[in-house]
């Protein structure tokens, strides 16, 4: 019974944070008209969310591509010619692996960092100080982070896609006895621009989820260092769960209905 109660409580908590996120999102949205004044803050967040995440994305994607290459080669072995290796890697990476894995690692890195930063600001009354100065934290803190993530996640995904395919390409060449030309021809065989576009649309939504969950958990932080720690955990857990759920919904929508 205790287990069910816990699961139920987690579900209620999840609904709670999604509800709060809706309000935070709305307040950030209505502050968009002051975007020109906040451009510097947006660029700063793009730098922090995007540029500073590059090393992590690089390592994750290169090895993901390499592993995907080995896996696909193993699966194809008895059924299809290796000419399809490039096709499969390309499709896996741009539709699924690139956007989702990038979002999950960025969710961990950036989501936790946003929640901890805003949470610390909350518990040390810095957010109160901002409101007392008539500066809306949703405009000054939340909106730049949401825009920063929304813009940079697709950019990071393009980089991750390229690196992952590169990783797959190198492994195919070096270890799997598939020449570069065969790999690239395979990629071209069933190339469909909608695959790439769909992946990028997903990346935008994931970026929104990461920043929004980080900001919501951070703004709701209470009770000193413990509260800040909890906020960071909530942000990461909520982003990861929502990324995976929305991935299913978006994949069904984009590839099952729109591009089908």
């Amino acid at each position, binding site marked *: 019974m205790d287990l069910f109660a816990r699961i139920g409580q987690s579900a209620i908590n999840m609904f709670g944070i999604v509800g709060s996120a809706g309000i935070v999102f709305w307040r950030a949205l209505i502050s968009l008209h002051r975007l020109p*004044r906040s451009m510097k803050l947006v660029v700063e967040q793009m730098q922090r969310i995007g540029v500073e995440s590059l090393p992590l994305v690089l390592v994750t994607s290169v090895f993901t591509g390499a592993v995907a290459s080995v896996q696909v080669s193993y699966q194809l072995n008895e059924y299809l010619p290796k000419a399809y290796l490039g096709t499969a890697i390309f499709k896996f990476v741009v539709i699924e692996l690139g956007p989702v894995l990038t979002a999950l690692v960025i969710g961990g890195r950036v989501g936790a960092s946003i929640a901890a*930063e805003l949470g610390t*600001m909350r518990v*040390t*009354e*810095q957010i*109160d*100080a*901002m*409101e*007392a*100065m*008539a*500066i*809306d934290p949703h405009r*000054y803190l939340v909106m730049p982070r949401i825009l920063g993530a929304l813009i940079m996640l697709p950019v990071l995904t393009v980089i991750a896609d390229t690196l992952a395919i590169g990783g797959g390409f190198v492994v195919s060449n070096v270890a799997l006895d598939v020449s570069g030309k065969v790999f690239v021809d395979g990629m071209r065989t069933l190339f469909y621009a909608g695959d790439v576009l769909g992946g990028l649309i997903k990346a935008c939504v994931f970026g929104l989820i990461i920043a929004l969950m980080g900001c919501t958990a951070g703004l709701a932080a209470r009770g000193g260092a413990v509260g800040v720690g909890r906020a960071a955990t909530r942000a990461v857990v909520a982003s990861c769960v929502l990324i995976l759920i929305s991935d299913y919904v978006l994949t069904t929508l984009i590839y099952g209905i729109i591009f089908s």
Partner: protein
Amino acid sequence: MSGRVLIDVRDLWKSFGDNHVLRGISLELIEGDTLVVLGSSGCGKSVLLKHIIGLLVPDRGEVLFHGRNIFDMNARELGEARQHFGMVFQGAALFDSMTVGENIGLPAVEHKGMRGQELEALVEEKLRLVGLEGLSRLRPAEISGGMKKRVALARAIALNPDIILYDEPTTGLDPIMAEQINKLIRDTQNKLSATSIVVTHDLHSACFIGDRVALIENGKIEFIGSTDELMETEDEAVQNFIARGHANRGPRENDGAGLH
């Protein structure tokens, strides 16, 4: 009492769960006056201050600013009203991602669009007022607790507000620094002719800074009047508080300036 009523707090009630913090607080703040809200720790002084600037919403009651209830104002009106206030928070609440200068200049940048030399001049002027000239490039983490409170004061007075709210300005400081902060508050009031509310549990500060004193005990106002009246009243709750104040400070400090 004479002069215009700037802030009129009427029958304010606030509870956090079962903790009834404010139980029907009413008081008026006259233009040019310095009101000290005195009370032991946890009696609801800071909560009262946060209601006055609209950071907390009461369960019941109203706060009239220039005759308008701030809890009936929309976000834009509340923002405009808050620009008439400056607030010094208990823990200084400086933005630790910014330098001292950026902290002080933020209200001017956000509300007046101030930039460049004009902004630098403003920051230096305010730093000079609090005796910290030349420190604008330091970060809050690089300065002492007393200096942080001074920077917080410089930030609060950046736009020459009509009303300055101080939340426990001397808490956590050594007696010498506390004395300096008390003098600084009095000098600031003289220079800017601002109206002030100072929340403190320090009787000595209250007598040194205040024109009028309100004593809060158990969420209610036990006494309101001039500092002279405070020391002469026969009210038992006030006598008890004064006795505790004397006991806390020790016999030698009781001979200090301001105590009658």
